[in-house]
């Protein structure tokens, strides 16, 4: 322990920064995001089964289950081991490249679909402090703009996949996704402007601090929250807005021609985008890692409290992810013109009205 402390005190500021950032990236990505993605798929399957009067996945039984007397069968019935089997299956499947595809784009498209979603998580404060380290990978001053910028790059994965596959279903999926994501990006971007008018800063840590002092922004800006929520569904291509991969019309949409791990990467990308959207909503509207009682609003001073803050953040985020999953089995898919109508003719004007309203109220409360 002493040796470790000595080692860290001997480091320069840059060296410490590099070491801790790498650590945070590895832990967040491999310790949190990928397991959450794997188990979000399981929750999706289970929730869909339960809503449709089925039992859902309950078969995968690894060899060590027989050594777990009571817990083992329960875990098997809950399908806890299915994500492991799914992952293994993805790796072992034949990676088939059809002869008619544009090879270069066909290979890089899945990667482009995953990377932006993961990068967007970099600026999200997922806890207050552990020791001296702030629990955010990059505490940028323009955090929100960074997230929007990076998320807007995610569309390239889908568009290129559609283009590279050289098949009409994929192509239509790619075209649809580009139009849809651009449309809803505008509504989404405008919906958060009132928040920054209230907070007066683009840094996400400041947004949380603002909410810790007063009420959560979901109560102060309900319209903004509704627009952001719906736009988040559209941005992550989730039902009721999953037109780019509408199974009934486009077979599989942009990933029709993909198999094996490349297909799995699109899946990971979609769920990571869902995590990023949920995390953004927690930070912007639900007070981030704070809770308005038991002194949890303050930045952590002890290690246990730091962990508690991370726990609060993750539970809020998981709750929103269940909302994402639940809505999928609740609403039918929108028609394409309805989708565009909702985005451009309902939400964009509504967001503008919301901005003006917030400005008027702010001006009335704090005239200069």
């Amino acid at each position, binding site marked *: 322990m002493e040796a470790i402390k000595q080692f860290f005190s001997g480091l320069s500021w840059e060296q410490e920064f590099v070491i801790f950032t790498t650590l945070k990236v590895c832990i967040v990505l491999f310790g949190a995001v990928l397991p959450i993605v794997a188990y979000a798929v399981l929750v999706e399957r289970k*929730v869909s*089964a*339960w*809503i*449709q*009067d*089925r*039992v859902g996945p309950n078969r995968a039984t690894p060899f060590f289950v027989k050594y777990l007397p009571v817990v083992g069968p329960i875990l098997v019935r809950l399908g806890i081991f299915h994500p492991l089997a799914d992952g293994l299956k993805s790796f072992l499947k034949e990676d088939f490249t059809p002869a008619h595809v544009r090879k270069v784009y066909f290979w890089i498209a899945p990667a482009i679909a995953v990377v932006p979603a993961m990068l967007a998580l970099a600026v999200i404060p997922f806890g207050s402090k552990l020791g001296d380290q702030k629990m955010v990978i990059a505490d940028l001053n323009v955090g929100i703009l960074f997230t929007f910028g990076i998320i807007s790059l995610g569309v390239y994965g889908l568009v290129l996949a559609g283009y590279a596959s050289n098949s009409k279903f994929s192509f239509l999926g790619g075209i649809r996704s580009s139009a849809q994501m651009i449309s809803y990006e505008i509504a989404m971007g405008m919906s958060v402007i009132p928040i920054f008018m209230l907070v007066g800063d683009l840094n996400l840590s400041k947004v949380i601090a603002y909410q810790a002092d007063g009420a959560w922004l979901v109560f102060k800006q309900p319209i903004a929250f509704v627009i952001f929520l719906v736009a988040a569904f559209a941005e992550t291509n989730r039902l009721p807005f999953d037109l780019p991969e509408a199974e009934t019309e486009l077979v599989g949409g942009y990933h029709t021609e993909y198999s094996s791990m490349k297909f799995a990467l699109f899946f990971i990308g979609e769920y990571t985008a869902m995590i990023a959207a949920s995390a953004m909503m927690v930070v912007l509207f639900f007070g981030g890692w704070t809770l308005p009682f038991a002194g949890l609003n303050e930045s952590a001073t002890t290690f246990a409290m730091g962990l508690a803050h991370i726990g609060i953040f993750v539970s809020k985020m998981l709750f929103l992810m269940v909302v994402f999953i*639940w809505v999928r*089995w*609740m*609403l039918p898919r929108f028609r394409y013109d309805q989708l565009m109508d909702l985005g451009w003719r309902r939400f964009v004007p509504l967001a503008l009205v919301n901005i003006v309203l917030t400005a008027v109220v702010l001006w009335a409360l704090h005239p200069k």
Partner: protein
Amino acid sequence: MIVKRANLTLWERLFLPTLLGGLQVTGKHFIRTVFGGKAVTMQYPEQKWVVPEGYRGAPYLVRDQAGDTKCVSCQLCEFVCPPKAIKIIPPGDSSLKADRANAEKTPKEFEINMLRCIFCGFCQEVCPEEAIFLQRDYSLTGETRDEMIYNKEKLLALGGTHAGVQKWKQKLEEAKGQETFPVKD
């Protein structure tokens, strides 16, 4: 008939009623399945579906009550079979004799390829001797393709005895009841 679509009211256009309705329906099913144990799923290999009487599964050959083969090798079923799953080798010049008195022939070999069979029931419909019936087996498995070609012995063993109308016995009685008796005893 033209049904005029009513315009939505403002309240309906907010999507809120549909959202709440959806939440109510899905929530009800969720709670009923998780806490009420009302899932409709059948755990297949352990629990098996009880097939109702008259289910039309795999076609098998049947014997009559006397235990004789009913098939007379007319090959109508082979002809009508849409996926060409049935293959019949007629007796030809061989000394193979039919089991029962009113039949001239019996098939030397009768094969149904269960990998091809689509359980359509045309063979049962077309059979003049009521010798082939779709029975209650629906899940046929095997480890090789050859294993899935059922031969005459297997089909007869699986088909069992048909307990229904005995066509030729009835014909005989009908004939005996007539004034001029055309059939020799």
